[in-house]
């Protein structure tokens, strides 16, 4: 590993292109992500968000263009890039047959950490999974799986974390929990690149937002900058109605912090409805 100045962008993407056969997924994508910031790649399904993440995490080769992560080129210094990143894919990449704790120990071992069991126990505590730690992941709810998935990604303290649609399929409470984790990460200096199709998620979390549409970045800026793209706001008096999300959170208890038992209990029911769909 060579030294890299701290002023350099954590992620730098220039002219990235990728086609699958005749389908052009990315046609010249450029953006920079500053160190310690949260960058949201916003786009509808099929916009190419996952393709960008797969290229940046060395799972896919670009047809043209360059990309560097933590100062390392993804094409020529892939091993160094993998030392610098952690990927949380679109679908919770957890081992169903192992317990939550075993999943964490597995990743800690693969990252060659000194004390894998202590690392696992610490993360189980931080993600309210201590009680469920010895249960097989196949019994977990969607929210618990995602929490475990993100916990696995935190092992090794990678300077750059990719979160591909981290809250898709989660209930509102679990979504708020993920948001808090992401904010905390960025607060500790980790660079976070997240993709999302939820506008409010980008609004809640991101320092900068880029809109990926038909393989190109069509807008890139802070929330304030993006809002200025539209005509200036006019002042109207409207009755402030609570959103359904606010109603839901108020009724089910308001607090985002769930107890371990509560998480497992409500988790099981949401899992049951999830599989019946």
């Amino acid at each position: 590993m060579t030294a890299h100045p701290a002023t350099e962008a954590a992620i730098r993407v220039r002219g990235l292109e990728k086609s699958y056969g005749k389908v052009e997924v990315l046609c010249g994508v450029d953006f920079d992500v500053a160190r310690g910031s949260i960058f949201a790649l916003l786009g509808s399904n099929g916009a190419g968000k996952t393709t960008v993440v797969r290229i940046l995490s060395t799972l896919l080769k670009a047809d043209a263009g360059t990309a560097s992560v933590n100062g390392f080129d993804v094409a020529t210094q892939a091993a160094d890039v993998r030392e610098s990143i952690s990927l949380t894919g679109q679908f919770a990449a957890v081992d169903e047959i192992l317990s939550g704790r075993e999943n964490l120990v597995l990743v800690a071992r693969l990252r060659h950490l000194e004390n894998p069991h202590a690392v696992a126990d610490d993360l189980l505590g931080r993600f309210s999974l201590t009680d469920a730690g010895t249960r097989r992941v196949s019994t977990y709810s969607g929210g618990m799986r995602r929490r475990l998935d993100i916990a696995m990604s935190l092992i090794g303290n990678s300077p750059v974390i990719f979160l591909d649609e981290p809250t898709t399929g989660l209930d509102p409470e679990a979504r708020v929990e993920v948001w808090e984790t992401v904010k905390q990460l960025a607060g500790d200096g980790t660079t976070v690149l997240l993709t999302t199709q939820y506008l409010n998620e980008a609004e809640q979390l991101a320092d900068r937002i880029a809109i990926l549409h038909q393989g190109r970045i069509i807008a890139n800026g802070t929330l304030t900058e993006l809002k200025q793209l539209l005509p200036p706001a006019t002042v109207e008096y409207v009755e402030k109605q609570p959103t359904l999300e606010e109603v839901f959170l108020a009724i089910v208890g308001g607090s985002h912090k769930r107890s371990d038992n509560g998480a497992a209990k409500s988790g099981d029911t949401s899992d049951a409805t999830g599989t019946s769909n």
Partner: protein
Amino acid sequence: MTTYFFGDTAVLTGRTLRHVTRSVDTVITTAITPVAMMLMFVYVFGGAIDTGSDKYVNYMLPGILLITIASGVAYTALRLFTDMTSGIFERFQSMPIARSGVLWAHVLTSLVANLISLMVVVGVALLMGFRSGAGVSAWLAVAGILLLFTLALTWIAVIAGLSAKTAEGGGAFAYPLIFLPFVSSAFVPTGTMPGAVRAFAENQPVTAIVNTIRSLFAQQPVGDDIWVALAWCVGILVVAYIFAMIAYRRKVA
């Protein structure tokens, strides 16, 4: 990265071995079909089959062992396919580990899982009256040939697991392999077969392997059969390994 190859492969093998020990049903299922065939051939058809040997169970056990391996590797393909589709394969590939360790973990697990199934089948055969006066070296030779055959078929399973689109498709490759021993010297002497079938049976890998193992169990000289058997196993292994690597490169950037 190479410094971590053995350590990472060991950790990942521990993971896949847990998949085997926690779904003992797959090991049992692997053993049940060959055991059922063994019961049927020995107690139903066997009386009418004249092999010239003393006990029919002694005659047909080598073929049954090959069928056990052929059905066992279907689960190897299935385990790999599950990893490919669940996203955990990509998680491992994006981590700073020896990447090929993921594949080797599945290969080593396949060897262990098949060894367990083979021991179950041999155990049942012993209950059914199978006896061999073979010494330690002959048993080791049998084990070595079976291990090599398992390894060769495992790499075929890796191709299937990597390139399958559905779980069913991932296991389908095993059916022709399970069928192959029927057109060989595994259950009846090839001399009774009509011309073209006989020519196929006598020149396909199973016959040479079965004859070698049978001779080792019966303490007879193995002759040229052992070299033909080894050549087939190594040949299949090399070709399957090359194609598995091609399939792997397609999946991994």
